């Protein structure tokens, strides 16, 4: 009787494994296999439309050769995008984490109010964020310069000055996407073990030490995953740049995804645009792998030290 029951359980368990993974696998196979493979394949082709039909010319590595030897704007975009990713993501992580801590310790009313306020920016459609911040940061009539004017400062050309434009775009990105980090950090904090926190509060001297040595290590998985997605999303930034500056002045705010948009979509050079996407994909993967290795090495070194 007992072995039969065990068998039954094993069968059910096997079924669970299959059933639980099936929806995700099905989604990926049906809806992403063709687009992704198509995109990767396109990077080796030159596509032209003639007489209403597409003509695919296999060009081997030509698109990549051109990208590495003749392209300048794309690489300016890569450079800007790295600056963008580092500054914007750090800003968002620090702000988002601090604000989540603040909300966690606030009273119940303050907590509801602050959560509501902090989440506002991500519910505004990106197209509205872009157009409206362009108005706010306008040199002539913008709200930002009006406020500075009260203090006798300005006017500052936030988006028209090549030295300032990238900083302004980064500012808007931090404003827009900090709620993303905040929300995940808050969820992470809520799920921490209350008893451990209470014990830590009694044991440790200062609040900073408590954050540094108790909360942060416990939050590490959440922090890592949030960081991962913020970095990826910051390499996919498009709407804000498109609407605020369209990559200008000069190449001051050019970013990778904007280059891809212009090439792949506006100029309809799908092969070349696909090659740009592939190169971007490899670059982000490399960054992630390096970051992972770095974190693991530090972690193992710390373990060895203790």
């Amino acid at each position, binding site marked *: 009787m007992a072995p039969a029951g065990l068998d039954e359980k094993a069968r059910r368990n096997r079924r669970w494994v299959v059933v639980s993974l099936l929806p995700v696998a099905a989604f990926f196979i049906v809806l992403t296999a063709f687009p992704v493979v198509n995109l990767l394949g396109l990077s080796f082709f030159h596509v032209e*439309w003639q007489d*209403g039909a597409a003509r695919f010319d296999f060009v081997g590595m030509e698109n990549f050769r051109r990208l590495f030897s003749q392209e300048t704007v794309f690489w300016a975009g890569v450079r800007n995008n790295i600056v963008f990713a580092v500054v914007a993501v750090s800003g968002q992580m620090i702000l988002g984490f601090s604000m989540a801590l603040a909300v966690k310790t606030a009273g119940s009313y303050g907590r509801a109010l602050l959560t509501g306020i902090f989440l506002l920016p991500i519910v505004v459609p990106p197209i509205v964020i872009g157009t409206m911040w362009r108005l706010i940061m306008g040199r*002539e009539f913008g709200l930002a310069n009006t406020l500075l004017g009260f203090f006798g400062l300005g006017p500052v050309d936030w988006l*028209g000055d090549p030295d300032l434009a990238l900083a302004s775009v980064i500012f808007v990105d931090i404003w827009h996407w900090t709620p993303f980090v905040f929300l995940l950090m808050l969820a992470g904090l809520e799920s921490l073990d209350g008893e451990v926190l209470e014990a830590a509060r009694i044991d440790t001297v200062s609040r900073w030490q408590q954050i540094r040595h108790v909360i942060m290590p416990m939050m590490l998985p959440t922090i890592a995953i949030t960081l991962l997605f913020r970095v990826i999303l910051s390499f996919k930034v498009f709407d804000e740049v498109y609407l605020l500056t369209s990559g200008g*002045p000069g190449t001051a705010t050019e970013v990778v995804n904007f280059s891809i948009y212009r090439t792949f979509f506006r*100029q309809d050079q799908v092969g070349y645009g696909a090659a740009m996407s592939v190169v971007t994909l490899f670059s982000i993967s490399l960054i992630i792998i390096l970051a992972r290795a770095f974190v693991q090495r530090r972690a193992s070194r710390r373990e060895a030290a203790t």
Partner: protein
Amino acid sequence: MYAATRIKNRQRVCRTLVAALLMSAGAGAASAQDQPTISMAINQSPWLDSFVAMVDQYEEETGNRVELDVTPFGGLLEKIRNSVRASQGSYDIVNVNSLWLSEIYSGGFLAPLGEIEANYQLPEGVLSYGNTTNWDASAATFSSDGALMGVPVNGNVQVLYYNTEIYEQFGLKPPKTWDDLFANAKAIQEGGEYYGFVPRAARDSIVYNFTPYLFSHDAAFFRITGPDQAEVTLNSPEGLKALETYVKIATEAGPPGPGNIAQGELIQLMATGKGAQAIAVIAAWGQLEDPNASRVVGKINAALLPAGPDGMIASSAGHWVAGIPKNVAPEKQKAALAFLDWFAQKERQVDYVRAGGVPVRGDITGADLGDEAAFRFIEAYSQNARHAVMGLPFASAAEASDAMALSFNRAVIGELTQVQALNQAAADLAGVLERAGFTVSKLPDL
């Protein structure tokens, strides 16, 4: 009041008479009766309401139906591509922006109108905006020798806007040449209160904005010298003179930071009365005359663009052409053409202007519109429309424009000298032309 009503009545009588005449003559080739319902991809725009009014009028007059699929401007190209590239198209008429025309024509997606209705010609008086209604497939460029591919549905070219109040204050006259324009702008700028001239020098629009300067200096981006042969002529002495003029006006007599001034900022500066002059498309007119959006209602006027040293004048075309895709049923194609032909007739175009649209004909005068002040732009529009050019008449226009825009923009913000910018832009353009299959020759670097 009474006089105005009388004029309107007289026009109505005229219109009915003309309509009756046309009908008795069999109304040309395309009959407008008993056609199947057609669908049209069109973008949301300031002139959409006037177009809708014409569709209503068409439906009322003929009993035919035209369904409009209204899309954001930023999404129309994608929708058009998706539809015309499919084996069965979802639109019987696609509304193509001048920027996309070469791509859609050269891709072979549209049915030449002469194949839908044997020997169909555009009605007399309809503008071709630099031959953009015709495509010569063998030379891969716009040409009056090519096949007729579409009917313009919304006219749009650049005009010179100027604020008459500021002009009076400084005792100025509308400029005839670029030097006049610069002198006017300088005088106003030095007054300290207004910006003399507002350029549109952001990367996404600078090539379009620079085109009239270039062509009026008797220069061009490139010229086609034979089948699949092109010569890049941008980096000529005339081209340099044009760029120098552009940069001088943009940087010495206008707002600071011109490198990020796009259409939005330009209209903002003009509508608030802060900018005295600008070169922009006639499509901006409605906004400047709308009291809810403008402080300069009744104070703005439009003029012919300034001439170059030898008296040449050019204006960038920014119009829309309706094309009929190959991948829809023949009876739908016929119905689509019937509607477009109806729409392009002079009396309908007068109605179109009255409803707030920009006509696609060059023969509509102030008198046709009862000389009403609201339509005072019409003469300047017609003049500019006759000088309309397409700066980059080949299939990879978008790629060429993006490539050159960067160099011009960097010249405006001072990252490159004019000579460097021109050489770089010419080299980039040559690269694009080569990739497009041309054998390219190029002037030596400046």
